[in-house]
């Protein structure tokens, strides 16, 4: 009981020691969490003979693994497919979701709340649960083994609509009023007032959508069996079954696939983490 004053008012040197310890623990933990990714990059630069030695820095770094993966396997093609699919989904999804978000937030029409609830209730429906009937539907629409089959079903998700709606609800009412006084229609209000105002949230969502589609595996695996439609994730999973013993090639391929997303993350980490953080509640 007598030491309460000292613990309630710790001396400044005590505070510094605790803070340094705290930071040290955090940093060690962060390095441990990052270790598998560092290890991946490390092996990618190692020779086959060295790939099971425990040193993190390769003793004789080589680019051979990357050369082999990029020339021996149609990885460039896979990446082009991934890029095309991800970019298409992102652009179309942003267009549709901003439209829906704008209407659900700022226009009044009967059934609006019910439509919003219906959209919101699909929030927890995950792909593995509906993959069998979804496959049947997409097959019936003739979109198997086609870019349309890779792109169209991936466009629609409640998450983006929900975030955009929340954003539009928070905008002040006055912003449209001047346009309405000028006699502008709803399309013009959407196109020349709402869209420019939503640039920050759209860029955050664009990054999220792009990453999610670049990283998607289950749907592309299911819908496209033709090798020239493979996206990079399917390509690498298949590459693994062919070259299961050549870990240095595997890690080079993994590094090539992971680098674009990690670079995007390093550049846009604040936007990415902020928009995911607000997806929690609210």
């Amino acid at each position, binding site marked *: 009981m007598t030491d309460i004053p000292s*613990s309630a008012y710790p001396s400044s040197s005590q505070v510094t020691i605790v803070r340094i310890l705290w*930071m040290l*623990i*955090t940093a060690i*933990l962060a390095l441990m*969490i*990052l270790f*598998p*990714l560092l*290890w991946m990059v490390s092996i990618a630069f190692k020779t086959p003979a060295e790939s099971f030695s425990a040193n993190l820095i390769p003793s004789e770094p080589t680019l051979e693994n990357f050369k082999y993966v990029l020339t021996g396997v149609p990885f460039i093609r896979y990446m082009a497919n991934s890029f095309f699919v991800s970019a298409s989904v992102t652009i179309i999804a942003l267009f*549709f*979701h901003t*439209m*829906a978000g704008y*209407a659900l937030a700022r226009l*009044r*029409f009967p059934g609006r709340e019910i439509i919003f609830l219906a*959209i919101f209730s*699909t929030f*927890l*429906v*995950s792909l*593995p*649960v*509906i*993959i*069998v*009937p979804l496959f*049947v*539907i997409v*097959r019936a629409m003739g979109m198997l083994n086609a870019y349309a089959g890779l792109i169209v079903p991936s*466009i*629609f998700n*409640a998450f983006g609509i929900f975030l955009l709606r929340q954003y539009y609800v928070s905008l002040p009412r006055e912003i449209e*009023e001047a*346009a*309405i006084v000028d*006699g*502008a*229609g*709803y*399309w*013009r209000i959407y196109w020349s007032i709402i869209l420019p105002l939503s640039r920050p949230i759209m860029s955050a969502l664009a990054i999220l959508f792009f990453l999610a589609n670049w990283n998607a*595996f*289950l749907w592309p695996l299911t819908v496209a069996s033709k090798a020239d439609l493979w996206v990079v*994730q399917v390509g*690498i*999973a298949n590459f*693994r079954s062919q070259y299961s013993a050549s*870990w240095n090639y595997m*890690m080079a391929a993994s590094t090539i*696939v*992971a680098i674009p*997303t990690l670079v995007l993350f390093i550049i846009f980490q604040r936007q990415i*983490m902020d928009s*995911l*953080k*607000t997806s*929690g*509640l609210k």
Partner: protein
Amino acid sequence: MDTGMSPHQNKPHQSTPIRQKGLSAKHREWVAGYLFVLPDAIGLLIFLGLPMALSLVLAVFEVNGFGGYRFVGFANFVRMGKDPLFWQAARVTALYAVLLVPLLYVCGLGLALLVQKTNRFNAVMRAMFFAPHMVSLVVVAVVWQFMVVDKIGVINKLTPLLGISGISFLGDPQFALLTVVFVSLWFLMGFYMLIFLGGLQDIPKEYYEAAKIDGASPFHCFWYITLPLLKPTSFFVLMVSMVAAVAGAQAFDIIYVMTKGGPANSTAVLIVYIYQQAFSFGAFGYAAAMSSVLVIVLMLVTALFFVMTKGGRFSYD
């Protein structure tokens, strides 16, 4: 095209009849609203709503590899009851979720508390904690597979330090599920850290200041202020992580790429078993029947959560 009219307009009487072409301003707003929502509504209906309904329909059919359908009533559900692999998959799913959900909660909250204060150092640490979540799960699975590969992976070089060695992490049914849970935890915890950071941000600082004046210890602050006020976030995290563990695409990717459900079905969760039944054996009807059971279980658990937490609402007292 001018569709909008406003009650605030100063001289509406001359221009209104021409502009509105028979529709009042109110109805114009209705039409605009429906048109704006239409593309997404149709898409969600076809690619989310229809599949959910269809899984119930497919469940009473036997579907062969060429797309031929035969009505079989409840035969698929009877088959489920008698299929030992289905029950095995249900057990593995429950075990995976029961192990993963509490671990995600504790680790997500732990990491969030560690980097809670806003400063430069913590911003970098947060990004490092979150970085695994940015990598595709195929890459995650392949890299971890390499790290724990039988006897010679780098993890096997580190485990002797803990007094264990020679473990076949993915080859031994005893360890395979634990390994998969661990990798899922590694990938997912950064995301839940972010959600918890969002929740921690919303707790008013005044509570902590008042407690400090009263001489409360950091542990007391955590137990009597942080945890109770985090209830909404906790609810969300438990809810979402539970659904993700039972039915998430992420769980599927990790397990499918790392083990394909093996060895000896020890990691075959329901979603992997369903996928194999459908796409390896062409048993679409049977797979749909299992999916619909999964949907019903998920809905029941969700409802139970809501009842237990009184509709997801919490009072701040």
